[in-house]
């Protein structure tokens, strides 16, 4: 049973989600943690620090709507992290965390963003790679 990616369809096939995780890379390759960190602290791209805080000493304004990302890589496996970035509503349907790699089940999306995911598959992998390094 390989995780199946629906090519350009910008969504992850249900059978690629094993219960609480997406075990396989969306791109088939490992992400780059340095780029992943840059995406996370970018308020227009990752948007993560609007809600989360984390071990980013140089970032002055961090959110307090969501758990601190410190230690995320110790609490969660790479596959669990990937599922939470791709579509955290599969873990918690009431979550406020946006699905970064889903275009279905969205209402009234502004024209400039219609049919587009928040992050690309490469960017999701970069973010996952960086989060995996947050071990303490």
């Amino acid at each position, binding site marked *: 049973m390989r995780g199946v990616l629906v090519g350009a369809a910008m969504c992850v096939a249900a059978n690629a989600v094993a*219960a*609480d995780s997406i075990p396989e890379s969306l791109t088939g390759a490992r992400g780059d943690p340095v780029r992943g960190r840059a995406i996370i602290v970018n*308020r227009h791209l990752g*948007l993560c*620090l*609007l*809600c989360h805080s984390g071990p980013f000493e140089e970032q*002055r*304004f*961090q*959110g*307090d*709507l969501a758990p601190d990302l410190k230690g995320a890589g110790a609490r969660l496996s790479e596959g669990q992290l990937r599922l939470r970035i791709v579509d955290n*509503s*599969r*873990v*918690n*349907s*009431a979550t*406020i965390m*946006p*699905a970064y790699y889903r275009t279905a089940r*969205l*209402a*009234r*999306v*502004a*024209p*400039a*963003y219609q049919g*587009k995911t*928040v992050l690309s598959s490469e960017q999701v992998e970069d973010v996952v790679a960086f989060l995996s390094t947050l071990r303490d």
Partner: protein
Amino acid sequence: MRVVGTVALLCTLAVPVRAVEIPPAERRSGYEFMSRETRAMQDDDAANPAMLWVLEGEALWARTAGAGERACRDCHGDARSSMKGVAARYPAFDATRGRPVNLEQRVNACRTERQKAPALAYQSRELLALTAYLGRQSRGLPIDIATDARMKPFLDAGRAAFNRRQGQLDLSCAQCHDDHWDKRLAGNAITQAHPNGYPLYRLEWQGLGSLQRRMRNCMAGIRALAPEYGSAEFVDLELFLAWRARGMKMETPAVRP
């Protein structure tokens, strides 16, 4: 066994959690979230930049306009008495249209029907000035909208819009303003989204703006398609916001960061 456990957990979590409306005793104006400097700016007419628009509105109130060659004052007299408490009752039911109208629409109805002058555009300096001037006559008075049976469908529509997830970021107004008003989004207080200061001077805008402009800002933030200015959908939302803030004191023209 572990897989079964996880699946069961996912099912429990899948029950949608509805936003909880803020109990009256816990409601707080955006003012209370502001820095001391910004509050001082709102409190002192000499420092409040919005007062420029209020003064302009006062002049417009007295100025003849349109083919009717009449000023607002010719029909309504001194706004300080005739318009006291009026803005606090908007959106209000309009029998001709069979639906609630906001203050901007009310002003424009008077312009087109009574003054025979062209309607003023949303966000135009004149419409902001007139609504700020009208709002000023309700400062300190409680929001007091009608909530009779005629209003109910529109109030319900506004509530539904407030609670609907939308945009690429898939968030509802309620998820931030009911559920997380005591938190911070990056460095900014989220606040409870009360409409009691509009139109108001926003430091970020470097100018005066309407409630609909503010709502459009939030919609842009969640990457959602915003309704047209003056659309029924926006007025229903304004109505719901006013209902949510019923009894709260008007602050128009307020200052916000």
